[in-house]
């Protein structure tokens, strides 16, 4: 089943839309869903031109395609457990929260909190992702626990904060505090980033570019070969009695 949701142009396009109902599973029972714009509940067809082709018995066979001013949509794919969501443009905050299965593809950029606390499945972002990509939530002990997030552009700060499982790969650069409070899982940044792995307990963090502001609480172990690259291995974060591994191509401490 393919569900195509094209956003209708809106007069007040600055108000975001809470669209946690846009999950493949929900379309098995038709398109009688609602979303919230501010304090107003709207039917799905008030916001989107809805087109359904074919039918399906299980969420794995459902594909949802979103187009239009999709950067206004928040919480798309929250608690998604299977199927596929393709977003042709940019997507708003909290896309793929808590997802446990299926695939979300964002052709454009993603706003903050992409794949927050996800437990499984895969998110692919062709553009950039903003802050707190694949992170935990405020104050929480564990962030992402499984699945994969791949970002082909760059990401903002606090990438994969509190990650406890799963894999996050960023092909561009990342901002400050990547992998902060990491306690498991794998984080790979192909470009540069700042202060990775702060307070990490476990897990592995790879930076194929240059680390700026390298934290002094990591102990240098030596060099390792990894996928054809020579990386410098650190253990830490010693400030947190951490047993994490940080591998970097190059690094510079703060002056």
């Amino acid at each position, binding site marked *: 089943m393919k569900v195509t949701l094209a956003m209708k142009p809106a007069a007040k396009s600055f108000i975001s839309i809470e669209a946690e109902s846009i999950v493949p599973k929900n379309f098995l029972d038709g398109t009688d869903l609602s979303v919230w714009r501010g304090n107003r509940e709207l039917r799905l067809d008030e916001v989107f031109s809805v087109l359904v082709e074919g039918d399906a018995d299980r969420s794995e066979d459902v594909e949802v395609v979103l187009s239009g001013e999709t950067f206004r949509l928040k919480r798309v794919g929250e608690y998604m457990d299977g199927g596929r969501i393709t977003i042709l443009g940019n997507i708003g905050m909290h896309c793929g929260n808590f997802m446990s299965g299926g695939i979300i593809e964002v052709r454009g950029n993603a706003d903050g909190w992409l794949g927050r606390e996800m437990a499984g499945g895969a998110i692919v972002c062709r553009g950039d992702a903003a802050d707190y990509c694949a992170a935990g939530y405020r104050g*929480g002990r564990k962030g992402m626990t499984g699945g994969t997030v791949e970002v082909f552009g760059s990401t903002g700060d606090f990438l994969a904060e509190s990650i406890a499982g799963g894999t996050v790969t960023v092909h561009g650069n990342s901002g400050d505090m990547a992998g902060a409070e990491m306690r498991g899982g794998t984080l790979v940044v192909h470009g540069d980033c700042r202060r990775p792995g702060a307070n990490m307990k476990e897990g592995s963090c790879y930076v194929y570019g240059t680390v700026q502001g390298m934290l002094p609480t990591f102990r240098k172990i030596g060099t390792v070969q990894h996928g054809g690259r020579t990386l410098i291995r650190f253990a830490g974060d010693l400030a947190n009695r951490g047993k994490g591994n940080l591998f970097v191509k190059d690094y510079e401490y703060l002056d």
Partner: protein
Amino acid sequence: MTELLVKNACVIDPLRGINAETMDIAILDGKIVEEVSDAAEVIDARGMLTLPGGVDSHTHICGTKVNFGRYMSPEDMRAGRTPRRGPLHATSGYSVPTTYGNSYRYSVMGYTTLLEGAMAPLEARHTHEEFIYTPLQDTMANVLFDGNWGIMEAIRDGDTKRVAAIIAWTLRAVKGFAIKLTNPGGTEAWQWGKNVSCIRDPVPYFEVTPAEIIRSIVEANELLGLPHSVHLHCNNLGTPGNYSCTLGSLGLIPDLNEKRQTLYAAHVQFHAYGGSDWKDFCSKSEPIARFVDMRPQIVMDMGQVMFGRTTTMTADGPMEFNLYRLHHEKWSNHDVELETGSGIIPVIYRRKNLVNSIMWAIGLELALLTKSPWQCLLTTDNPNGAPFVKYPEIIGLLMSKKYRDAEFATIHPDTEARVPLPAIERELDWYEIAVMTRAGQAKALGIQDLGKGHLGPDADADVAIYPLRMDEVDPSVDYQKVIDAFSRTEYTIKRGRVVARRGECLVDGSNATFWVRPKVSENYDMGKDPDFIEKFDRYYTVRMRNYPVQEEYLNRNRCIETEARI
């Protein structure tokens, strides 16, 4: 004039010696009366268990410390969310909920009076402001005097009357209800980066010992004729082998008051540990319970630990630092100038953890081994041992050996060798539970004469009617029914008004705050004492005239005047 008649109520009212008598309760303008006119609104209780409104004599629900628990645990606010509805405000949070969350949840469980266990005098305004937004319970606050510089100097000089005078001035200024000592001396030592190991260790600079602080303040408490006794959180909380220190502290206390205890020992579960380190950690509830059995001058509360997530918060700063070193999670530490300090740490008590399992057992043992329920009150030191919403489960555990055994089978297997709990057959009855949750608490707080904790004529019309008939439920078998009933009243009546019905709060309410104003002679008025004023102006960051909490901060103001003997 509003009249209400509760018919066919099966009443347990321990302060009046009433045990399961079916009777009518007449209410006129928020007070219990002998009879009302035929025009009164009638509630038919249909023989359901009816108790005086619940009293919690030790809980942390309002104030800077609680609020900082909220700040530092935004994840806690993801639980317990309820939307705004009718007169009710939105709530959120589990172990440190919003004030409305606390108030509604307590009300649904039938609680109508709460005592905030620790209010730093300097930050009293915050507590009183939050009291206003705890609308469905009457409130009062213990004031922290554990590291007060003026008091420690007076103790060093051996001047108990001056100790009493400073307490009188402060209670009046901050609109406090009673004296709280949290790790006496230890929190002041913490300001020097130290702690006291037990009651004979001197506090740095002041050179007084916790034993001197406790004894002197207990005497001062009686000089002032305060309704409540000193409320003590002993030194050395949470360390293996601390029970001997607890016994030493309790042994300091003479019997000075005929009407009530002379010392309220708070959350004794945390102070009843044997062993020399975490490896041979074990329960010492038996010696403590036996010691308390022999001393009517002491009342304690359980401080029961229940498994799950919660937040620990106390004025015992050094103890929280030790906890931080164990858990390595987030930690907050706070210093309150010349008075006290505090620390906060979120924790998870786990069944799989041997130490946590033993702690769980110790609280229950204290309640079951102490002969008189008037001497061991039911609390969790909310939220330190568990959030107060766990009270019904604790009642279930105390009333049912079967439930205890079923729970015991799920905890760490080595617990059995470290605790006496499996051998205890005692099951508490309804009357004892009523004592431990209201009558005993009101008596310990000294508020029964103010119309709390009983249903006698002229008492405040605070009534909890639970959806349960005692003749139909055998608590030792049907413990789940007991838990369900105590979780959700059929009616909670506060000041003569139905405030909660079947788990739903109905009104916005308006709380009253009790506070104490001891009348002292001119010579002992610290507001005119040059030395006190000079020290105040030199060391505090606030001016003395800005320090007292104005009465505008109190919603309904119930001032208790006492005749001090100084």
